[in-house]
């Protein structure tokens, strides 16, 4: 079996395995519940926030900052580290297939699943607010749904690569994942634009990608980037390039560890 077909086959099998995971159902319910809460909140908007503000607030902070990173990390760790924990990786490693194809297949499955789930989730939430025309005095801004859907898809691919890196390298990947999400994403990722360390996060380029896509008013910009009091368009830079670099670097590192690690060695146990 060639590299490409092995990758596709592993993707197919991993997707199937993940879809049978109970967490998939839990996240599905959570996305529907968030949309429902959004609809109810739209009936009584706090502080006279517009529909675009409410949508950005919930989509970014609930989906983009909390639910998506944790879900993708969990699925990524399940897909890669689950095999290592229960030793079923031996079945795959002993086939004449490159380990790189196996890891890429798993990464692709996690990224595709999470991007579809959260893109749908973001669109669902948008419809929940769009169903209340009184929240949109200038008309429903559909470009927001497009921008958030795009951001969710990119975020899923980026977090999936972080997840497979941690799963391939560490014996306790979820602990490192928690440190990454809470320490790097939530703390460093929300620092002002001058803090160069932000480039180590996925939050930062994602936020800039969103701001680039939605042409925000100052209040909406502050919803997405509270530490930046005066948002200027020249802060946006090249978010897609930054995200691509993060994905490429983490994937290369993950492949390096996955292809070279002796998961069966006693010292690892």
């Amino acid at each position, binding site marked *: *079996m060639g590299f490409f077909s092995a990758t596709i086959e592993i993707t197919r*099998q991993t997707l199937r395995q993940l879809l049978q995971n109970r967490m998939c159902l839990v996240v599905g319910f959570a996305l529907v519940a968030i949309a429902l809460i959004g609809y109810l909140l739209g009936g009584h908007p706090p502080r006279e926030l517009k529909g675009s503000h409410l949508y950005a607030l919930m989509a970014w902070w609930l989906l983009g900052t909390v639910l998506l990173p944790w879900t993708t990390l969990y699925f990524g760790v399940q897909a890669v580290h689950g095999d290592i924990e229960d030793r*079923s990786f031996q079945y795959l*490693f*002993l086939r*004449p297939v490159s380990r790189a194809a196996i890891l890429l297949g798993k990464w692709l499955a996690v990224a595709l699943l999470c991007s579809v789930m959260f893109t749908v989730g973001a669109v669902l939430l948008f419809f929940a607010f769009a169903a209340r025309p009184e929240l949109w005095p200038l008309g429903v801004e559909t470009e927001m749904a497009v921008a958030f859907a795009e951001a969710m898809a990119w975020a899923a691919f980026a977090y999936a690569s972080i997840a497979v890196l941690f799963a391939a390298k560490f014996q306790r990947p979820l602990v490192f994942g928690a440190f990454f999400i809470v320490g790097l994403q939530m703390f460093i990722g929300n620092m002002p634009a001058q803090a160069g360390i932000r480039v180590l996060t996925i939050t930062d380029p994602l936020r800039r990608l969103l701001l680039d896509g939605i042409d925000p008013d100052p209040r909406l910009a502050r919803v997405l980037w509270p530490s930046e009091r005066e948002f200027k368009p020249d802060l946006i830079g090249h978010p897609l390039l930054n995200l691509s670099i993060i994905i490429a670097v983490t994937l290369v590192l993950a492949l390096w560890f996955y292809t070279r690690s002796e998961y069966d060695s006693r010292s690892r146990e």
Partner: protein
Amino acid sequence: MTVKLDNVVIRYGAHTAVDDVSVLFPQGAVGLLGRNGAGKSSILKALLGLVRPVSGQMQILDLPQHATPNEIRARIGYMPERDCYLPALNGFEAVSLLGQLSGLPAHDAYRRAHEVLYLVGLEEQRYRLVSGYSTGMRQKVKLATALVHDPKVLFLDEPTNGLDPDGRYEMLELVRELCRDLGKSVILSTHILQDVEAVCDSVVVMERGRVVAQGPLAELTSTKDRVFLLQVEPPDLRLPVRAMPDLVCELSAEGRYRVRAGLAATARDVFALVQQHGGVVRELTLYRRSLEEVFLGAVQAGVGQAGVVQGGAAAEVSV
């Protein structure tokens, strides 16, 4: 020659698991014996490419292990010791997936999956989720996944682990069939000596990371002198210790005689001896050492010294 190791050293940190081992595994069924921690699993893992030796060379079917891992993987099958399985798949899907990953076209992989599941006796349960299988069925599906791509060499790590007597018998019968009827070479790693006696033609015994005995089972269990186990009628018949120059009779605690026969003596002489003393032979069998005796002897001899018990001219071991 199926598998060859030359001066292989495997270390886990400061611990040396396999210490400069050179050994040849001939064709047929070979038992890899040793106590827990003797280094047999480490050798298997190194041969499978899951662990890299610090030094030494390994060859499988004349292919160097390190240089041609994919070619080797296409020719070997592995049945792991631990109870692990690919999640969310039924027996047929698991086996056919691994067949495809081994390079079989999808159609051939499906056909082979049906064949091997039939061979191992899982044809009725092949569409059930593997996670719902009993221990015996899981062992069988592990064997089926090892066989799906028709490998020449099979590495079986404790194949009877957790099986009840019936399941154990079935599994050993299957392994025997694989060697006898399908011409597979099997390396059976286990610490259950009866399994090796039931299936294997030769053994490699390991202790503390070294090979302490190896050779054909028949030669390892044979004794230098011929020793007969003799039971006589009447049971209280007493034979002299050295009745003939080449026959030494020792009465054992169970009331049977161990008759050590020299080069000139035959079984006929034993019959004559008993008859001379007014008795009849009730049972006369040629005594062979049990594998357990061979194993314990080799392990004790191997502890603290670099020695190898060799079982035959074909055995080529230096430690």
